[in-house]
């Protein structure tokens, strides 16, 4: 067993290059703890989406990816920024999703790809999104 300890990696997000780096590494981390490629790709899509939101709407922030392997295996993604906040979280989550143009997959689409998806957003303080996907 090459990977027998939980791993946590921090990615500052300031540009699309940072987003690509985070999603690639997230894909590798998920595969390393046993996620099949298609499931690991879903995780990569969500990292990409959350990273792009930071880049697009806030400019800077961070993504932390944890690959947890003790007792149970899961990937935890934490996306944080100190931006304006999401004015209506309920609406953002209830809304339809699309991937066209600059609209992205949206939070609604990202949520569906994960098992757990929590948003904490405070106006003019920032947004923290925690998302978990368990290995079954």
């Amino acid at each position, binding site marked *: 067993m090459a990977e027998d300890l939980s791993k946590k990696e921090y990615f500052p997000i300031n540009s*699309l290059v940072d*987003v*690509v780096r985070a*999603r*690639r590494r997230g*894909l590798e981390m998920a595969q390393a703890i046993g996620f099949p*490629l*298609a499931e690991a*790709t*879903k995780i*990569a*899509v969500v990292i*990409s*989406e959350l990273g*792009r939101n930071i880049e697009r709407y806030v400019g800077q922030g961070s993504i932390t990816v944890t690959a947890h392997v003790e007792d149970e295996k899961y990937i935890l993604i934490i996306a944080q920024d100190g931006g304006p906040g999401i004015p209506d979280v309920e609406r953002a989550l209830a809304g*339809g*999703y*699309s*991937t*066209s*143009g600059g*609209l*992205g*997959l949206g939070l609604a*689409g990202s949520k*569906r*790809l994960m098992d757990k998806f929590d948003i904490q957003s405070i106006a003019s303080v920032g947004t923290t999104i925690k998302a978990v996907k368990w290995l079954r």
Partner: protein
Amino acid sequence: MRVVVRQDTDILLACQKGRVLAEQVGLKGDNQVVVVIAISEVARNIVKYAGRGEVILSVIGRNGRRGISIVARDEGPGISDVERALEDGYSTGGGLGLGLAGAKRLMDEFEVWSQPGRGTTIAMAKWRRDERG
């Protein structure tokens, strides 16, 4: 059902129709999103590289299982290096940046036929998980 793809709004339309069809077929929530992502990637390629083309969506069945088939077709310049186009990170432009590589990994079946100067056809399928024949 067929969606002519020429501009961004057509991509959106193809995604919406795909989502409804995926729901009708009985794909789970996360796989409905997968279908939308895959349609988005291939439709975006049509707009970006070929200018116009079409996406054909249909319900398929095999051994008692149901699924959704997505065929994207264009008569554009074609993909000069299909192998390379399927490498991760090849596409970092619009969309989710996962490109064809991402679509391939997310779908159950994925094939590309492309001839330089003649066009590209991409055929993909996603099957319902909970039905085993």
